[in-house]
């Protein structure tokens, strides 16, 4: 279809190319010309007095051109006119918020020295959390992905972050493209001005504090790619970073991935596949004047397996001259096949001079079945702490060889960090959560949980170092199923898996869990299993293949938020089905026959939002086998759902009192039990019945979608093969089909929505159709028609602002699938105008768009697990802001004593005392976090009613006072 239309790109398109844009928005026309022109005249007469685009919208949006849509011109003058109007159009009506959230990277979280803060490296930001109350203190956004660098196959990503060893307020963050940020994490400064080093690719980085001219200075050891099969370690200090030239420490002729250093740079260890490289600082007895004076002796030796993680534990001793030197070094490595090797007192085993050491016998500890994702020494060196895909935290007591377990965590353990004082462990789990466990009782004291949706990751998982019988999915092929509860606008409900790795093992990601995510506090509130999941059972078969869990494909809340309908799908993996083949069936068909598609109805408990399964419909849509349920929607005025299946039937579901032998049954608390059942089935007209000429085989895949009209009186069902779907208008009271409208769509139906008298149909076209006047208001053709893009196109309608949003991915031209580097575009239309209100390119693929409840905007979730809020101007996004942004952060005086102690060692006792006094003083404000008042809370009070109908001023005063007054601390 694209090829057909490309020649019709006229001079307009070439103009766009000059602008660096690939295409333009092109208008398609369906109706007689007079209609269209009339509507456009109306449109042009609109005043254009609003100020020009402000700075909130990104550069890409400012260019006013959509890469999503293509407009078929037909050489019509009127239409060209219209598109000219479009370019001068004003977009300040809508704005896109800064993204929140993100995905925690496989980089060790960092404790601040006083253990009061946890610094977590996200894919696009550094986030500082308070360990006392798990609140987000600061979010430092890093411009990791540049919008203009989309053509590169491997987009830049953060590879390492480390706390500055000499100035603990600073953080070094390295990006794979050679940018290195030096951030002050207590203020957020430094995000805009990275150092840049000239490298092919940064692989890893560590930071050590080295005595340079009797002053402690940070030295960065950067592991960087040199040629395709070699890498270098280069040392930089601040000066060298400015000059962009560091001191080359060592060149490897293989590709190490891991770099660790210890003891003030006296020891650096790099791991490359099955080899370890140990570098020891040659102490020449003279003071180091700069990075150029750093000289290392390197040894390498083979290890039995692929190294996935390592930890060094140096023991220092004081030399006679007063300096320090390494007494001995204990090293532990975790390997890709599950073994842990401990090298005790490693340095003494290395030969004196030779660079190639013979095999050194380590102590082997093997419990993990799959790769060890992290292994760490405990503070005292008596224990090892390790974790991996078994979701078990293992504590190895080295002297006795005894193991202790903390089993059944929520997802694969990615990183373990022992706090500076050794009193707690920080764990980063694969479900985008991090927690701090106290070592004494193994209870979490801090818990940070982000959106658990699938992301496009930069690095392959540690599991994939070894060839497995399965292959993990490296693309996002299905949209994230997200919905919000109409009664609780701050909560998002997302269908997620048991963690990134666990959910991306099948053909399609398995998403058995429903994550409840509170947008206003930006914390995961809870998880409910809504399909079969085995959190405490082995997640692998005995053959080593992962156990596939069902995938939730549709979800909808009833209008009052009391009921939730969900659809989940599971089909047995084809590898199990060989013996079941009969006749000429293929495994694919056999697997389809055994699909389990469940429609489930859940009751939402009013108090705690927990879900109670009320009814499960095994075969809601059924022909000779279970049929896919294409859509489930809820009636906007009554407790009723409608579902559409590939059997071409629309079913209405409604609750009724559960009866047993004619008796209404009651629950344990005496409340009436209800059950859901099909109250009406409406067979949709097949396409063939409308136009005899077209013969469509029953095997052709059908697509469809449903939408209730706003008053619930009419249900629109778009259904049919991609060669021609028909929109049926069903009277919901009688079930009669009132009308059928053909030719509103082209290709697969991706979505249908109703907004007052307009019907918005998204297929390969975006069509807005007026039901009352029975004419197409306007129509656009979507440019992107790739298979992945079809899946990931979203349509959302906000009835409050009478607008709708369309989002679609723009895959890289070089890629078939939606992988890393793909972008997305979101376009907001007002239903009455064919001119987009907002065109915004997002650096990641948008996986879900939904209207925000009780407000005029939209919420988008992207493939980096970030949430974007798209709001009409003047409205406040209901999203959490970091404490720092709310000026709620604690006074600087609190941090001061630490600074003093480290930077000015000679600070007098008096000064220290003063500082302590400050601390005492500030103690009262320690828990000021509770007085965080979001602006929307105030807005709720003051905008509750028009001025003449407001509550008495006294009541308002108490409401406001109640918001600000600190409640007694409960911590």
């Amino acid at each position, binding site marked *: 279809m694209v090829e057909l239309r490309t020649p019709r790109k006229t001079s307009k398109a070439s103009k766009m190319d000059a602008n660096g844009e690939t295409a333009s928005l092109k208008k398609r026309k369906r109706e007689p010309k007079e209609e269209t022109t009339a509507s456009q005249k109306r449109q042009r007469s609109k005043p254009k007095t609003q100020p020009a685009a402000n700075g909130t919208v990104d550069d890409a949006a400012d260019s006013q051109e959509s890469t999503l849509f293509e407009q078929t011109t037909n050489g019509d003058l009127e239409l060209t006119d219209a598109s000219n109007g479009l370019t001068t159009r004003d977009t300040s009506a809508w704005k896109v918020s800064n993204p929140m959230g993100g995905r925690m990277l496989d980089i060790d979280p960092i404790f601040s020295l006083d253990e009061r803060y946890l610094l977590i490296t996200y894919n696009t930001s550094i986030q500082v959390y308070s360990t006392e109350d798990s609140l987000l203190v600061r979010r430092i956004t890093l411009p990791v992905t540049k919008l203009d660098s989309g053509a590169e196959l491997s987009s830049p990503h953060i590879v390492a972050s480390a706390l500055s060893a000499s100035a603990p307020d600073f953080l070094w963050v390295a990006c794979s493209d050679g940018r290195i940020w030096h951030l002050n994490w207590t203020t957020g400064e430094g995000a805009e001005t990275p150092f840049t080093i000239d490298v092919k690719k940064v692989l890893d980085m560590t930071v050590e504090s080295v005595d340079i001219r009797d002053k402690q200075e940070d030295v960065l050891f950067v592991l960087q790619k040199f040629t395709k099969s070699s890498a270098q370690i280069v040392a930089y200090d601040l000066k060298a970073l400015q000059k962009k030239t560091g001191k080359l420490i060592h060149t490897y002729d293989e590709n190490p991935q891991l770099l660790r250093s210890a003891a003030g740079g006296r020891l650096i260890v790099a791991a490359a596949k099955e080899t370890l490289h140990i570098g020891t600082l040659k102490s020449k007895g003279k003071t180091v004047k700069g990075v150029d004076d750093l000289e290392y002796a390197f040894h390498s030796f083979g290890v039995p397996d692929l190294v996935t993680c390592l930890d060094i534990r140096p023991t220092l001793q004081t030399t006679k001259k007063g300096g320090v030197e390494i007494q001995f070094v204990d090293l532990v490595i975790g390997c890709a096949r599950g073994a842990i090797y401990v090298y005790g007192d490693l340095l003494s085993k290395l030969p004196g001079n030779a660079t190639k050491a013979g095999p050194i016998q380590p102590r082997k500890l093997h419990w993990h079945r799959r790769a060890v994702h992290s292994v760490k020494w405990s503070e005292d060196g008596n224990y090892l702490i390790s974790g991996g895909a078994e979701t078990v935290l293992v504590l190895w007591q080295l002297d006795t060889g005894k193991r202790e377990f*903390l*089993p*059944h*965590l*929520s997802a694969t353990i990615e990183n373990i960090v022992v706090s500076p004082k050794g009193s707690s462990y920080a764990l980063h789990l694969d479900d985008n959560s991090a*927690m701090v466990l106290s070592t004494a009782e193994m*209870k*979490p004291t801090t818990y940070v949980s982000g959106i658990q949706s699938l992301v496009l990751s930069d690095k392959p998982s540690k599991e994939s170092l070894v060839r497995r019988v399965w292959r993990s999915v490296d693309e996002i092929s299905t949209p994230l199923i997200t919905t919000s509860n109409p009664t609780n606008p701050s909560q998002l409900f997302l269908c997620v898996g048991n963690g990134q790795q666990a959910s991306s093992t099948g053909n399609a990601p398995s998403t058995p869990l429903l994550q409840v995510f509170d947008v206003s506090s930006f914390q995961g509130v809870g998880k409910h299993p809504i399909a*079969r999941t*085995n*959190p*405490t*059972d*082995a997640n692998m*078969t*005995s*053959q080593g*293949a992962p*156990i*596939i869990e069902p995938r939730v494909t549709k979800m909808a809340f009833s209008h009052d938020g009391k009921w939730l309908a969900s659809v989940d799908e*599971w089909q*047995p*993996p084809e*590898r*199990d089905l060989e*013996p*079941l083949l*009969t006749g000429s069936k293929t495994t694919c068909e056999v697997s389809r026959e*055994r699909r389990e598609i469940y429609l489930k109805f859940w009751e939402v408990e009013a108090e705690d939002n927990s879900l109670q399964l009320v009814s*499960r419909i*095994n075969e809601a849509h059924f022909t000779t086998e279970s049929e896919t349920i294409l859509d489930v929607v809820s009636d906007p005025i009554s407790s009723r759902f409608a579902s559409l299946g590939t059997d071409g039937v629309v079913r209405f579901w409604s609750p009724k009192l559960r009866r*047993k*032998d*004619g*008796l*209404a049954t009651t629950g344990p608390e005496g409340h009436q039990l209800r059950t859901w059942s099909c109250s009406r089935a409406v067979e949709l007209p097949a396409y063939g019945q409308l136009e005899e000429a077209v013969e469509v085989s029953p095997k052709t895949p059908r697509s469809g979608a449903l939408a209730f009209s706003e008053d619930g009186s009419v249900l629109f069902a778009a259904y049919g093969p991609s060669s021609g779907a028909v929109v049926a208008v069903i009277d919901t009271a009688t079930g009669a089909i009132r009308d059928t409208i053909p030719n509103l769509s082209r290709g697969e139906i991706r979505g249908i929505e109703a907004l007052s008298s307009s019907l918005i149909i998204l297929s390969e076209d975006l069509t807005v159709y007026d039901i009352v006047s029975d004419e197409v208001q306007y129509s656009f053709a979507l440019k992107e028609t790739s298979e992945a893009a079809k899946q990931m196109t979203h349509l959302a309608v906000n009835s409050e602002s009478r607008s709708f949003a369309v989002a679609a991915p723009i895959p890289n031209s070089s890629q078939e699938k939606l992988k890393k580097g793909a972008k997305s575009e979101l376009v907001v239309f007002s239903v009455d105008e064919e001119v987009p209100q907002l065109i915004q390119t997002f650096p990641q693929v948008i996986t879900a768009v939904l209207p925000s409840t009780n407000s005029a905007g939209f919420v988008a979730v992207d493939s980096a697990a970030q949430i974007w809020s798209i709001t009409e101007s003047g409205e406040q996004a209901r999203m959490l802001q970091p404490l720092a942004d709310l000026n709620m952060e604690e006074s600087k005086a609190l941090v001061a004593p630490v600074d003093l102690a480290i930077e000015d060692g000679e600070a007098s006792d008096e000064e220290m005392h003063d500082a302590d006094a400050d601390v005492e003083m500030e103690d009262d404000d320690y828990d000021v976090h509770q007085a965080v008042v979001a602006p929307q809370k105030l807005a709720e009070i003051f905008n509750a009613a028009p001025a003449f109908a407001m509550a008495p001023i006294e009541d308002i005063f108490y409401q406001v006072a109640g918001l600000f007054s600190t409640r007694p601390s409960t911590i």
Partner: protein
Amino acid sequence: MAAEVQPLATLKLPTVVSPITAEQRYWKSFKNQKSHTSTAAWPISHISFPGSSNGSAASHSLVAAAKANDLFAVTSGPRVDIFSIRKRELLKTIGRFDSEAHSGEIRADGRVLVAGESSGKMQVFDVGTGTRAVILKTWHVHKQPVWVTKWSPAELTTLMSASDDKTVRLWDLPSNAPSRMFSGHQDYVRSGAFMPDRNNLLVSGSYDSTVRVWDARAPGGSVLTFKHADPIEEVLPLPGGTTLLAATGSAISVLDLVAAKPLRLITNHQKTVTSLSLASNGRRVVSGSLDGHVKVFETTNWNVVSGSKYPSPILSLSVITAGAGHEDRHLAVGMQSGVLSLRTRLSGATAEKARARATEDALMVEGASSKLAKIDSAKAKRKRNAVSNKSMALLGENVDVIIPTDATNSSGGRKRRVKLKPWQRDFREGRYAACLDSVLDLSSPEYQPVTALSVLVALRHRSALREALEGRDEVTVLPLLKWVIKYISDPRYATVCVDVAFQLFDIYSEYVGGSTELADQFAVMTGKVSREVEKAQMAIITNGMVESLMIGGAEA
């Protein structure tokens, strides 16, 4: 934090018409039948106990008195037998009647009893003390047999009577003449009752096929009359006092007194309904009929929820309640043959004790001494703990906190984790074959087909079905085959059975030549499947015929 290990959840199959409902289970739990045959096999004409007719209307003193009561009265022939509710034993017999006795009713305080007689006499007896009942009062006002005598639920000294002389009378205990006489019935009055919650209202049913409501305050005749097709045998006001049941012939009519209209006619019995009784605190109604059936109705839609058959026509029945909660205790049914059947439901601690005794007895019979010893030792331990706790409590005057010897939590019960059954542990730890063997064991006492199905489905979900079926010998594969053959025709089990059968064919078909048993079982399975296929074909043919008929009908 760390999730707790949950046992494998059993599947919930689609609900089919369940062979036994909770309600049936409840009424089946009335067991331990005790039969008592009356002297000379006189038919049991009336069973009553105080408090049966009064819902919640009684005054406080009466409620207190009813709680203390342990007696119920059974009228048969010229005798009234007094039984103990608690012991289910005959305590005394009142035989001082000249003719057939009717309607022996004990007052709510359990002290006195009133009964009518065929001679028209009414007598009040002292039943509280002594073995012999003393006559306290005799009225001989009715000239025809007195069929109904009832105590007022509200006042201790008020009672009513109804007689074949077509009158209903209201009495005050000390006086010798009736305080009120209601006349208006055209035939024998054989049933009557006080309306609960409305102390001045009486209701009576007569052989003139009418139910009449009388008001003691209103002069003249009845305030409300319902005319039926058949004579009224029994009337039963429901608690609340707005609804009335009347047994008319083989039907029971439901009458609404407020709207003054019949609500419904229940026609579940085949012969004359002779008796009605409330049960389950007024939420159920039990009826007995000459056809020998006892039926239990729920009171909202009047569906039959349970029933049972007795060997002889039923003349009277009562659900006797006991305890503070007025729980149903006995189902007493009196029959034409003179047999009084008492069925008892144990509840709470008594039920538990009875169960423990039953298991012990069973073990004793079996001779499983080791298990018996285990039970004994557990019992002894409990006793020791109780004793030591008690002794510590005695010591405890100068200590602040007493720590009990056994680890009970605050709520009293011992907190413990759900213990996995052996098959659940096998399943969790990946011994799928062993797990399957134990759940498919048809002879096991814990065998349940749905458990087996759950395990098979879970195995399929875990891609472990083949692993569980593989590597078996002739002996261990046969139970699998037998199970599949047994359930393959059940539509709920069919898909799983088909998968298992395919796998078994795939794995074991090469050994059929070496094992006749295996070959036989496979042949049996093939036969069963082909029969099912035939049935399906027949169904399709029938469906086709019906459809063509329907089309024909629509055209015509």
